[in-house]
């Protein structure tokens, strides 16, 4: 075997050089792939970061716009405006003697307004993001096995 190899080297010494060069290029190519992968991932992370920054700014803008629109809606619904519109439509204030009162079974009068959940309420407490986006692969596998076991 060794004789054959040394014979081959004597007949074509470039083979060994090509082997060495190939090895160097292979290492180089590997390094380039790793570097490219790293750069790609870094670029993606930076891009995602910038997008998040942008989204965060947009979120702030949207929150401001929501507040602005809520106030604008209140301007449109203000007592003065509503009364003007009601009068224009031919409505008038009712007097006590023209009011008709009826008994509504079960009605106990107006309830206090609820603009947000009360403490202890379950409204909005469930996570909005699906577990698939936050679970690790092990969590996901474990959950899958557990669920299939239950079935």
């Amino acid at each position, binding site marked *: 075997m060794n004789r054959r190899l040394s014979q081959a080297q004597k007949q074509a010494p470039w083979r060994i050089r090509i082997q060495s060069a190939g090895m160097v290029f292979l290492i180089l190519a590997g390094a380039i792939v790793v570097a490219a992968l790293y750069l790609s991932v870094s670029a993606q992370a*930076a891009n995602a*970061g910038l997008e998040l920054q942008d989204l965060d700014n947009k979120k702030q*803008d949207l929150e401001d716009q929501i507040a602005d629109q809520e*106030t604008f809606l209140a301007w449109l619904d203000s007592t003065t405006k509503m009364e003007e519109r009601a009068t224009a439509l031919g409505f008038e204030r009712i*007097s*006590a003697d023209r009011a008709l009162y009826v008994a509504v079974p079960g009605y106990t009068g107006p309830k206090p*307004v609820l603009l947000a959940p009360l403490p202890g309420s379950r409204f909005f407490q469930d996570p909005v993001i699906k577990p698939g986006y936050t679970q690790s692969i092990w969590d996901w596998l474990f959950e899958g096995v557990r669920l299939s076991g239950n079935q």
Partner: protein
Amino acid sequence: MKSAMLKNLHFSRFQFTGIICTILGFLVVFQVARIQTSAPHQEISKWAGETFGYETKTLTPERGNIYDRNGNLLAGNMIVYEIGLDLQSVANPHTIAEVLSPLIDKDYNDLLAAANIKYDPTTAIYAVLKDNVHSDIVLKIKTLSAQMDKTNPGGANSSQPSLRGLVYTPHLVRSYPEYSLASNILGFFSFQERQNARGYYGIEGRYDQILAGTPTQVTVPLDPYLISDIPTVDPGASLILTINRDIQGMVEQVLNKSVNKYGAASGTIIVLNPKTGEILAMASTPQMNLNEYWKSSELYPQGYMFDRAIGATYEPGSVFKILTMAAALDAGAVTPTTPFLDTGYIEVGGVGIYNWDRSAWGPQDMTGCMQNSLNVCLAWVATQLGNEKFYQYLQAFGIGRPTNIDLSGEQYWPLSVPGDPQWYPVNLGTNAFGQGVAVTPIQMATAISAVANGGRMMAPHVVAAIIQNGQQYNISPQVIASPINEKTAKDLTLMLSNSLVGESSAALVEGYRIAGKTGTAEIPINGRYTMDVTNTSFAGWGPSDDPQFLIYVWLEKPSSSIWATETAALTFHDVAEQLVVLMGIPPDNVRHELQGK
């Protein structure tokens, strides 16, 4: 031989190139390592990191909203713009001054001077032209700018019109969509002061800190890899008030009309639920458009008069007799049928006391004394009660101390009691009919609400719920005192209800049984009481058998008539008549019929 030489030469060239490349490679690596580890580089890196890696800024939370009891927005936030100039980009200063001057109401020359400021990267980069500009004006400017940009792209031609260089920075400011509605209750937020803005008076003053939230200075990473570190601040808490917008609007209309009609110097009306202490409406004159809060110093030279219902003390006169009679009934000093012979004069502490008309009213019972508002009788009642008990009861009713209503600016006048240097024996007689004692309308309304609520006095309050961190915390009503027992409260309510019917009071509302009492108080001028100018008041509640509202009216110095029966009682009637409809309270017979079902 030749080929061996060529081979060596060829080899040495390759070797030489390889060595050079290797050395260069090592040099590059060495230089990279050297730069990374050198002290100057580390300093530059540190400086760059500090300067450009993070941005320190103060995050100001959005100010919380204020709603009425039905969720109608009374105070919110809207976007306005700061218009400024990026001095480096200004192309045509004349166009900027000419276009903006009429739109943002600023002098042409001032704008031109600002636009002509020479750009300097260290001292002159940006110039503010005007803040708090409404979005519709900004939209107009942007439209004009876009039109000019079509004919003169980028402002390249400086002789052509261009608005290049204008910068619009949006931010939120306080806005009151109901203008002056409930202005005395809400107070205002001085939004034009930007960083030093704060709440004044009323709700805005009292709850300033929780509405504002906590401004937080944060270091925001500019490095996109550290994006997860971007901090957030919670918005300020929002408040839901006990105020009913419709009732408030109606009460303000009636009040303003009454003040004009009766020629009063000022007026106040409070509508509260005696069972809970919730203020349903509270109006005082004058009201102001809160969006122009800077005019407040003109309207209210004395700041504490911003809300007269809680900030102005006055001698209430005969409405105070409700408390005197409540105390006497509760202590057992008199009963509703106790007889009294009114001679038109009584001496207390060596000083003579007369009736309002200076005449004698003959035989009376306690209901008659209240119906005819006899000072002599009530002074006698107070003497039957005695100093100690009379003042104990007044203190139990909260006279002489603040109600601690959840509004900024409450005032009170200390109650003089026996032993105080300002107290004289005659005070027992005069205090009995509301003279020589000063109260705020809210103190009176709160004290009288005990009579309307079976003897229990509820804490007057304006905030029904607080919304914080996405959750609503409702505020429960609180009993602050029980100055009289339930029987006393019912007896007195019946007495005052009968007395209104007996005198065919103008306060009565058809179909509803109301209990109430007028008060006409002389105003001391130069130390002497005179009937030329009076304070007229009326306190009433209904329906008598199940009180759902209490209305307190105070008109200051009415000129059309000095009497409460001809001013405050009529105002009460106008409010109560509409209030029963807005509150959905059926007439008594219908209510009893419905309850029977």
